[in-house]
């Protein structure tokens, strides 16, 4: 939990800050002159909690956590440590994969909540500091169009993304062959497959939830 969740927090917060900042900047560019500026905060908020927060956090964790799981288990595989576990009559999947799966699934929504909050904070700062929009205007429409469903949908996505990252990392780790080169390839495969799965799951859930 600490490795997967707490240690991932700094990078998640950094990504969240810039996600919010760039979202509000580009949304402002697109709606300027067409849509009243009081909707800027609302559109940024919705984009962050529904899509950007969960997806970008998941992609960061696919690189940081998923690849790390694949590399760690892959190294254990090629150095016979997994065989050693099995020889001690310890189920290696239960011992190694199950805790990592639950830790990732549990921590993912929590990280997304942090990412969402810091992204909205970043967006607000850019709005008041560089776009000349007051705090009152920035947040004015959010209460009127706030739906719990939006936030919960984002967190539900996060659960699925967390599960996909952990499953892919563990599966590829357990299937690693071929020494150090094999571990390197497993790490890359884990990230690429996780990233693709995140986007596919995102699409499927979007069609079901919205």
């Amino acid at each position: 939990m600490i490795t997967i969740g707490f240690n991932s927090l700094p990078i998640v917060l950094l990504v969240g800050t810039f996600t919010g900042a760039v979202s509000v900047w580009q949304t402002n560019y697109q709606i300027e002159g067409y849509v009243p500026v009081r909707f800027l905060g609302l559109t940024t908020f919705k984009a962050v909690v529904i899509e950007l927060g969960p997806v970008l956090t998941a992609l960061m964790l696919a690189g940081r956590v998923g690849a790390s799981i694949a590399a760690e288990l892959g190294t254990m595989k090629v150095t016979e440590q997994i065989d050693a576990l099995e020889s001690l009559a310890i189920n290696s999947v239960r011992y190694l994969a199950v805790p990592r799966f639950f830790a990732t699934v549990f921590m993912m929504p929590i990280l997304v909540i942090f990412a969402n909050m810091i992204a909205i904070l970043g967006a607000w700062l850019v709005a008041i500091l560089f776009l000349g929009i007051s705090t009152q205007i920035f947040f004015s429409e959010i209460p009127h169009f706030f739906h719990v469903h939006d936030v919960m949908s984002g967190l539900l996505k996060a659960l699925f993304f967390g599960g996909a990252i952990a499953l892919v990392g563990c599966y590829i780790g357990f299937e690693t062959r071929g020494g150090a080169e094999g571990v390197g390839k497993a790490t890359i495969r884990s990230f690429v497959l996780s990233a693709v799965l995140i986007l596919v799951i995102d699409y499927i859930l979007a069609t079901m939830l919205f």
Partner: protein
Amino acid sequence: MIEIQEITKSFGDKPVLRGVDLKIDTGESIVIIGRSGCGKSVLLKHLIGLISPDSGRILIDDEDITSMRDSDLYRVRHKFGVLFQSSALFDSMTVRENVCLGLDEHTTKSGEEKMVIAKDKLAMVGLSDVEDLKPAELSGGMKKRVGLARAIAMDPQYVLYDEPTTGLDPIMADIINELIIRLNEQLDVTTIVVTHDMVSAYKVADRIVMLHRGVIMFDGTPAEIKNTDNKVVRQFIEGRAEGPIKPVPIGGISLRGDRSG
């Protein structure tokens, strides 16, 4: 007693074991020799169900592990202790945690009891005051001995050694050989060693079998193998490049030559 009956195993289109038959009696110290890549370690891993055969049966005390449910297989594995070629110590754990892992998972012993067992097993392999070290802080010989302490921590009936002297200097290799002999006597276990180190084989074996081209080519005592007329076996035990055994790729089976044995 272990009975291996007509075991075959292929990886892709490469046959590695082509009908291995072997009976290992309780209390015996048997050494399986053969060239690198001939399938010795594969055969060893079959004994604890880490690899499943394509066909054939493996009976451990009259129980066929090839058709067992996982839960039964884990029960049978309690009878085994394994020293792996690379020692396979868990990097993230201390020596004590490595040795006690099986006890942690399968017993309700107190921390103090487990500590006593760990110290006892480490002393049996000639180590002391290393409990709090990590594997990265150990030499190759120490890693082997910690791996051995871990293998015997649960008092197994069968101890398997996969290339126990590989990568060690001759003195340390002899220390490991002495340990194998001593543990076989002290713990009253059945010892199965896989090696291509003939010094080690002669020293620890009651019986030597040679695996070649996926089958058991020779089965006899150390004295018998020293006096055998089999040209393939003689070339191997004398370590000569010239002879019926031709170079083969690692993990592969020679398709030319060496048909005389």
